[in-house]
């Protein structure tokens, strides 16, 4: 990840609590289309029809509690990135979605998202872990990722991580106590 990629700037696109993976991408499209690009027009379609067409590259998805609950479909994380969103900010995440996003190299961060309104200008500094709301003039600290996930994200996702280290890097450092 380069220096400039460490700061993400974009508009807030605000959703509520318990946004599940069926809402992110409905299974009826998943079964018809094998190509992630072709799924982009259907992002969030069942709860906000037409949303995909309004995404500007770099927009940040903002949500409440338990984002990404439900099925294990990794395509949910891939399609959000493919749609042009730069990250998801939520008060909490469902664990399978959270892993999937990091594994595909898509930033997902826990932060207090209360008070962020649709269209707010946000600046997210991934290095210092600070979220800045330029519209409302406040800063908030984002939760730091566990070291294992930070390393996978910095390597560009799980595939790049496994190729770079010829396996899981943390195995060699004695993290395996199982």
């Amino acid at each position: 990840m380069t220096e400039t990629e460490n700061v993400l700037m974009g508009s807030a696109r605000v959703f509520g609590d318990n946004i599940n993976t069926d809402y992110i991408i409905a299974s009826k499209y998943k079964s018809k289309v094998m190509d992630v690009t072709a799924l982009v027009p259907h992002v969030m379609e069942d709860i906000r029809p037409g949303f995909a067409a309004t995404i500007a590259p770099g927009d940040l998805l903002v949500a409440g509690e338990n984002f990404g609950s439900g099925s294990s479909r990794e395509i949910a994380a891939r399609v959000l990135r493919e749609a042009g969103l730069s990250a998801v900010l939520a008060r909490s995440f469902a664990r399978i979605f959270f892993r999937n996003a990091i594994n595909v190299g898509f930033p997902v961060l826990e932060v207090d998202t209360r008070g962020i309104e649709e269209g707010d200008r946000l600046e997210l500094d991934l290095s210092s872990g600070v979220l800045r709301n330029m519209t409302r003039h406040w800063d908030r600290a984002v939760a730091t990722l566990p070291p294992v996930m930070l390393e996978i994200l910095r390597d560009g996702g799980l595939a790049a991580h496994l190729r770079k280290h010829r396996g899981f890097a943390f195995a060699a450092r004695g993290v395996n106590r199982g």
Partner: protein
Amino acid sequence: MAKAGDFVLPDIDLVFAHDANRPHPVDVLEEELGFVDVFDRERVLLLLDHYVSPTESIANLHRRLRTFAAEKHVRLFEVGRGISHQVLPEEGFVAPGMLIVGADSHTCTFGALNAMGFGAGSLDVAAAMGTGKMWLRVPTSIRVLVRGEWPAGVFSKDLVLFLIGQFGAGGATYRSVEVEGPAIRELSVDARMTIANMGIEMGAKAWLMPADAVVLNYLAGRARYPVRPIEPDHDAEYESVHEVGIDGLVPQVSLPHAVDNVLPVTEVVGRPIQQVVIGTCTNARSEDLKIAARILAGRHVHPDVRLFVVPASQRVLESALRTGVVEALAKAGAILGTPGCNGCVGGTHYAVPSDGVHMVTTANRNFKGRTGNPNAFIYLASPATAAASAIEGKLADPRPYFQ
């Protein structure tokens, strides 16, 4: 000994994927991770369970998976053989103490057999297929003790819906949930799998139930791997401990459009419905179909209702044929489907409701659009509540049918 919060990289005992995964883990394994083989051909499995009526693109995906299985010498369960979460236990691939990674969030079902089942995405599953490992953060644990006698007409589905209503959809996120107690020991393996199946609906990372005599008896002559029951340490620390008494439990229903939107059936009886599904990895096992048949025998589905019944596996179907269950269901007007996931997710293109339909299903999710149409309304309930509702054409309390 690993403690809660530790990061570990354990050996995985079994890895599986099915035909609804996108991108497919076998493609990720070869194309993104660059593996030419799986870590152990006896510990990797594929199932064609989601699409029993393949479209052209799905038929070609099935071909790709058959070719992969033949080339790598891994086992593949064909179309119509049944749902992963039923086929793997009944074929002996799940045993106490195993760590199982599946490309499906309901892999937590195996907790009913005292195994740790983790649902995962394509990259984690592909990495596990290639390396035999998956990193995990050891979760903290929640303990739920269930006591009391099961009232007539109240089942394990009612208990798990009640628990989800109490904990909320994210109430067990990152946690392992241990469910035990005298009322659990009364349950069959079929009934226990219904409970463990829905662990993910409260966000649980894993779900564990005891390897008692019922489980060990189920595994006798069936388990293909060593049976190594796991029990809590004597000094185990729990984040919270909950006691639930079921003596006064009434049938429960999840209302549209959230699984944790739970009410006793008594508060919603009488709402008209037009469709019922008895199926899915939650509630389509032999015991479930028997309960439905017991209610439907000698009665008929309401003229305004379509009742779809989809057995969880071919073996469940065989058993239902032998025991007269299929005959009772067919005579009552049920529409019988091919064993598999059809009727659950909309992508299966089976029993998709029209706009404005209110439907009762024995499945585990009622999100808007889950069954293929965002303009329909989905209620989750037990097979008994589903069968009673199919007869009456409205949400119904099944308890009078057990008197």
